[in-house]
């Protein structure tokens, strides 16, 4: 871990930058939104339900959902973090103000405070600890979700974690996970200490918060706009493994701008034109669906990655007929045929069962001994 200390430092700053930028945005929008809801009660139900629904979208799905509009990198990551931070902040602001003792509100109004004076002198100060608790929740959620944004190439401590997972290297996972956990716990502890003192510490806290986010924001955002002409996206594993990108760049003498990206999001990013090159599987159905072009490996850098069925020996002993059944199709599925079958399934038009059945009954295969049976799912 020690040899990575510099990289860990950089990624921690990136991580903090992503989280705080999103948090600053969510606070700037969420607190006024929560206050508005207390004045327009009719909107409060639907609005809180809406931000609640955002919260339930799985992080990876949300990133994929944002891809067509915002592409990859830091901006969609911040937007996703921002959306997740909205719920705790809006809801706590709303509840905090709603729960101010009605007698106190009545007294404030009876004393002759205007709506704004009530808000500034009574409701906001009394709701401050609750609102702050919302910001604290959002911070902890944010640090967690920010690790996932490494999947769309926005940096942060997630890079180590996913690289570690891809390479099955626990040390590398820890190198990302431990600073992330420490960051979450440290921020949580600090904010927990401030929470009961928030009325007194509001000003210093707001200043520190604003300055830190302003200082980190350019660090995170500026690289996002220094776009390149040609960008290649590879999954973490391909970037790291010996027979991955590094060796390939030597064989083909390539100098590419690269970014790390989740396998699941790569194809779509290429389709949307967010990146220009990915390392895909030539049999993937999306190649056909998205009208992508497979490059020819004329220097034969990639060995053929043919699919090989792996079976538990015990299972095979009990069902020797599986071997015969698989032998029938072995070597008979061309890349093109496989891609086509994947395409049919990926596009959701057919079940794997149906596609497999159609294949077995197709002219080239049907008529072979035993082919009438079809796979047993």
């Amino acid at each position: 871990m020690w040899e990575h200390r510099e990289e860990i430092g950089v990624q921690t700053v990136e991580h903090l930058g992503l989280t705080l930028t999103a948090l600053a945005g969510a606070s700037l929008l969420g607190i006024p939104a929560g206050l508005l809801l207390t004045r327009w009660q009719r909107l409060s139900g639907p609005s809180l339900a809406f931000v609640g629904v955002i919260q339930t979208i799985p992080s990876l799905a949300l990133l994929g959902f944002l891809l067509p509009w915002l592409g990859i990198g830091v901006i969609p990551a911040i937007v996703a973090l921002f959306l997740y931070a909205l719920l705790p902040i809006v809801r706590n602001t709303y509840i905090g103000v709603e729960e101010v003792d009605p007698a106190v509100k009545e007294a404030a109004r009876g004393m002759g405070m205007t709506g704004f004076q009530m808000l500034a002198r009574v409701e906001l100060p009394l709701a401050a600890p609750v609102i702050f608790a919302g910001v604290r929740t959002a911070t902890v959620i944010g640090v967690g979700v920010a690790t996932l944004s490494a999947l769309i190439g926005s940096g942060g401590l997630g890079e180590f974690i996913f690289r570690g997972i891809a390479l099955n290297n626990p040390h590398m996972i820890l190198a990302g996970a431990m600073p992330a956990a420490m960051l979450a716990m440290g921020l949580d502890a600090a904010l927990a200490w401030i929470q009961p003192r928030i009325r007194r510490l509001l000003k210093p806290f707001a200043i520190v918060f604003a300055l830190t986010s302003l200082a980190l924001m350019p660090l995170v955002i500026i690289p996002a706009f220094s776009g390149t002409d040609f960008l290649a996206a590879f999954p973490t594993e391909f970037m790291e493994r010996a027979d991955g990108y590094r060796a390939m760049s030597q064989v083909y003498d390539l100098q590419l701008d690269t970014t790390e990206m989740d396998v699941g999001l790569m194809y779509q990013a290429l389709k949307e034109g967010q990146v220009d090159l990915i390392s895909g599987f030539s049999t993937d159905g999306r190649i056909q669906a998205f009208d992508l072009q497979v490059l020819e490996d004329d220097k034969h850098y990639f060995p053929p990655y043919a699919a090989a069925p792996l079976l538990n020996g015990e299972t095979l002993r009990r069902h020797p007929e599986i071997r015969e059944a698989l032998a029938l199709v072995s070597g008979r599925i061309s890349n093109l045929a496989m891609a086509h079958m994947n395409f049919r399934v990926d596009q959701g038009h057919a079940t794997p069962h149906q596609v497999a059945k159609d294949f077995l009954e197709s002219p080239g295969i049907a008529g072979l001994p035993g082919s009438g049976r079809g796979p047993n799912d």
Partner: protein
Amino acid sequence: MIQAIELTRKFHGTTAVDRVSFKVGAGQTLGLIGTSGCGKTTTLRMLNRLIEPTSGRVLLGGRDVAHQNPECLRRAIGYVIQSVGLFPHYTVEDNVAVVPRLLRHDEGQISRRTAELLDLVGLPPAAYSKRFPHELSGGQQQRVGFARALAADPPVILLDEPFGGLDQITRGQIQRDFKTLQRCLGKTVVLVTHDVFEAVFMCDQLCLMDRGIIQQSGTPADLLFEPANDFVRDFFRSQQFLASLQVVRLCDLSPHLPFDAPAPGRTPLLTVEWDISLLDLVQQFQNHDTASLVVSDADGTKILNTTIPSLLAAFWKLCADRRKRPE
């Protein structure tokens, strides 16, 4: 000073307050009384426009409040609610200073005024001004509530069950303190209560309401001795005796009591105000632990040599007289 004219307020078709009219003279205390839900609070809140009337008008010093800015209006009217509603994040001192600050009074003046008021309500500023509401007892909070309502020296004060939730002794103490305070500051007060004794003790005039309608208005003695209908009679029944003792004054009994001429050399045991209530007088007997008492009024012109039984006999006679009087 304050006049309500045919005040009516409807909530979703039901009439909470129905054509309520009354007049409170400067320095007077008006009590709005009645059972729970009869519309007392609603009436009170229409006076400072916390609720807008469906119809009817409120005049304050002759001016229709509907034409005044509601915030300015409320700053000129003291308001004390049952649940006190002190601002929990303000110190006692800052709570009292709320309205003067809204009115942008000079800070030096505000702190002098605050200290003065805290002294007035019996909370020495040295010990109390820096405390927070949660560091006070219920009765102390109520006192701060009064000080807050008085801070900008409003001529009119509205009180909504301000003595609720206190034990008997504390309540009696605060009621007496407030009454003295009100008398010497000359405030005009509208007091909402459902406590019969509190009403007759504190108020010059009463309006007894039922289901939004005034059943009877008049002095406490009017309502006690000449109830307009069965509702009024029933309302006072449980406290009739005690309330009557409070309402009847020594001067009311004078036709029925034997008075001596002031004899030189005979010092009276007790000197009282001429308009002391009978209840207080009986209390004095108890305090002096005696069956008969020589009482002199303040300038010593009349001397009364009496016992509790003879006072009570005179009291019964007066009650019987007033009840018989044709309405």
